[in-house]
């Protein structure tokens, strides 16, 4: 669906995402669980996400081209503790979230660690994807 300029003006967030795409920044959907932060330096990207309470064995990380997909699940605490629930604010369920990175990632060199409920993924750029300098023949 094509949006008119006026419609875009009325929706500043969409406009921001459109600009993000133009610049080539990663465009993630906002606040869909889990929230992520992306750090970039040259040919290296780091993705961090807060997924407290998620069992490390249920975390799935996959990379295809420039897309990183995170999966995981967390059972509701009420089911685990078996009692009467007075407050239920924490997130539970299954998630699957994909984000686009500014370059293609080398899947063999991706490293991930999970500590204190924070997942930390290091994603180096694919060698073949790196810009090459072309020398001019005389």
């Amino acid at each position, binding site marked *: 669906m094509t949006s008119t300029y006026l419609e875009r003006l009325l929706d500043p967030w969409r406009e921001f995402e459109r600009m993000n795409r133009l610049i080539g*920044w*990663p465009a*993630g959907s*906002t*606040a*869909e*669980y*889990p*929230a*992520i*932060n*992306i*750090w*970039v*330096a040259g040919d*290296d990207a*780091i993705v*961090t996400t*807060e*997924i*407290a*309470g*998620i*069992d*490390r064995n249920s975390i799935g990380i996959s990379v295809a081209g420039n897309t990183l997909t995170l999966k995981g699940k967390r059972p509701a*605490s*009420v089911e685990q*503790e*078996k*009692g*009467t*629930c*007075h*407050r*239920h*604010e*924490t*997130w539970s*369920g*299954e998630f*699957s979230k994909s*984000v686009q990175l*500014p370059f293609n990632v080398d899947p063999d060199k991706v490293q991930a660690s*999970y500590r*204190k*409920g*924070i997942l*930390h993924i290091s994603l180096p750029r694919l060698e073949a994807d790196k810009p090459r300098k072309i020398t001019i023949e005389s």
Partner: protein
Amino acid sequence: MTEKVQEMQKKEAELDKGVERIRNTRVFTPAVDIIEKNNDLVLLADMPGVDEKSLDIILEKNLLTIYGRVEPEVPANHRLVLSEYGVGDYQRTFTLSDEIDREHIRASVKDGVLKLVLPKAEKAKMKKIAVAAEA
């Protein structure tokens, strides 16, 4: 996708008017679950970035305060290009009733989740009264 998409946003803790914090960090209100069981109350708080060393649990009169310090991990020479969550400390205070046995509160942390077990005091425990048949 048929799955329900759940939106999550960290809530920043409120400060009283005219009061400022000493450390220049953001402070968030952790999401909690409170579950009542037969003999105790279980409080679970999501505090990613907190471990047993950076957590303070203070019980003063009937106020139970949990405070978790988070050291922001900024990757060297990297710039943040997408930020969906902020990093900061966690604080939340609860009032306890007399029905909690304060001497035996237990706390543990796993994968960024604090688990507090608040045992019920003897008098608050549910008692089942046996009914004897009249002779």
